[in-house]
């Protein structure tokens, strides 16, 4: 007997549902799978992802009427600065992002947007200021970040192993997340044979694979076609509604209406 219902119920409770309601939803979901004569795992995908999807759906109406209900602080920057030798990349950066919020980092080329995102990730240390950040973080670089000779499935296995997931769960989670970006990884196809946009979809999936509370995205839509671009922002909204915090580096100002905070790093090489 699969332990899918138990894991599903546990995840619902973890996401803030009352235990009784979580139990009822778990039982109903198991019944639904029974009616289809299949395992819940096959019908709904990984338990933890379906739980998040369901919680998002349940909370969506409330969020429409009450947009500014935000969760706990996931990222707080206070007076953060970074220098390379004598050149100040940025200084005095303040930013607070809570769960259920999206922040955009904008600015001219070379003003330090990607550097700031790497500071947030912890890959670069700031020279000034303080950073407080939630432990579970997903980072999606602007390009690279994948191994050219491995397939998408192998990337799911590799990144899943790094996060302590067993290979099977990592692959099923990766495939499920890819489907939400309208992408079905072809078996046996190495990453170097993927288009630039599809490679970025893989990057996004890898950033989200271990279920982070904070997503740091560095212009992740490079190479996306129109449909994929819309899917991406739809996905950002879904993350926000699921209570995650998202920080996205962007230069597309018309998307700023979709975000809660805008951090403008200004002109290249200049201080804020």
């Amino acid at each position: 007997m699969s332990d899918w219902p138990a894991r599903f119920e546990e995840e619902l409770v973890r996401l803030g549902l009352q235990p009784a309601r979580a139990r009822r939803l778990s039982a109903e979901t198991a019944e639904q799978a029974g009616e289809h004569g299949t395992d819940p795992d096959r019908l709904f995908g990984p338990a933890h992802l379906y739980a998040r999807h369901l919680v998002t759906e349940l909370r969506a109406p409330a969020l429409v009427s009450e947009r500014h209900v935000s969760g706990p602080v996931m990222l707080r920057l206070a007076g953060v600065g970074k220098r390379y030798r004598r050149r100040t990349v940025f200084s005095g950066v303040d930013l607070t992002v809570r769960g259920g919020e999206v922040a955009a980092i904008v600015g001219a080329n070379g003003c330090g947007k990607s550097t700031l995102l790497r500071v947030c990730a912890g890959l670069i240390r700031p020279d000034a200021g303080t950073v407080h950040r939630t432990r579970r973080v997903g980072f999606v670089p602007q390009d690279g970040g994948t191994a050219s000779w491995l397939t998408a499935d192998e990337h799911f296995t590799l990144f899943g192993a790094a996060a302590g997931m067993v290979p099977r769960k990592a692959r099923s989670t990766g495939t499920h997340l890819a489907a939400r970006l309208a992408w079905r990884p072809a078996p046996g196809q190495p990453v170097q044979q993927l288009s630039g946009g599809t490679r970025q979809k893989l990057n996004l999936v890898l950033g989200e694979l271990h279920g982070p509370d904070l997503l740091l995205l560095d212009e992740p839509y490079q190479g996306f076609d129109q449909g994929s671009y819309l899917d991406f922002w739809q996905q950002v909204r879904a993350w926000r509604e699921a209570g995650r915090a998202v920080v996205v580096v962007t230069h597309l100002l018309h998307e700023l209406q979709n975000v809660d905070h805008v951090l403008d790093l200004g002109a290249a090489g200049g201080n804020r």
Partner: protein
Amino acid sequence: MTALVVAGLSAREMSRRWTALLLLISLPLWFYLVRRDLTGQSIRMLALGIGWAVSTLTLFVVNASRGVDPRLRLSGASVTSIIGGRLIAMTGAGAMLALGYWALAGFDQDLPHPWAAGLMMLVTAVVAAPFGSLVGALLPRELEGALALLSVCAVQMLADPAGLVAKFMPFWSTREIGTYAVDGGSTDMVWRGLAHAAVVWLFCAGLTLAVFARRLRVARYPEP
């Protein structure tokens, strides 16, 4: 667990670069064939060719992973599992290469101590993996790394094995064990070779780990 996954996928990744792989696998063969008429020369050149091939392959694999490693760290992997996994894969590949060439040399040459010839090739492959890792850690581009490996192997080939310069080279153990395998003599040479190989392995693996521990460190920020 993570180290084994990294090892398995590194091996798979390497196996797909089959043109480079074929060229590198065949490299020791050319070294061997050039002086096939002289047992001692051909066996020593073969072993050095194995060392060069394995270290170059490791260098390529290490450099190809530069973009992935920081993300693996952020996902929760330790530096030891990333570097260790890759080392396991490359050592395994090197050991297989050594085994293949040992079989060839065993059939083709009349060796006084065939087991020592096998040991020489195995030790060379085992040392070559962390040595290639270290060069990859210190030199971030493949061309620079490959040239550095070429220089080291060339010096190793040309330096007088009894001199000080040769002893500071990573594959001195190959020459020492090889002398016993081909010319005979005291088994002290084998032990000296093994001790040298152990020191080089520890130095290269330790320094590689230290370089990557610094390069792949992730700041531990306090929770909000």
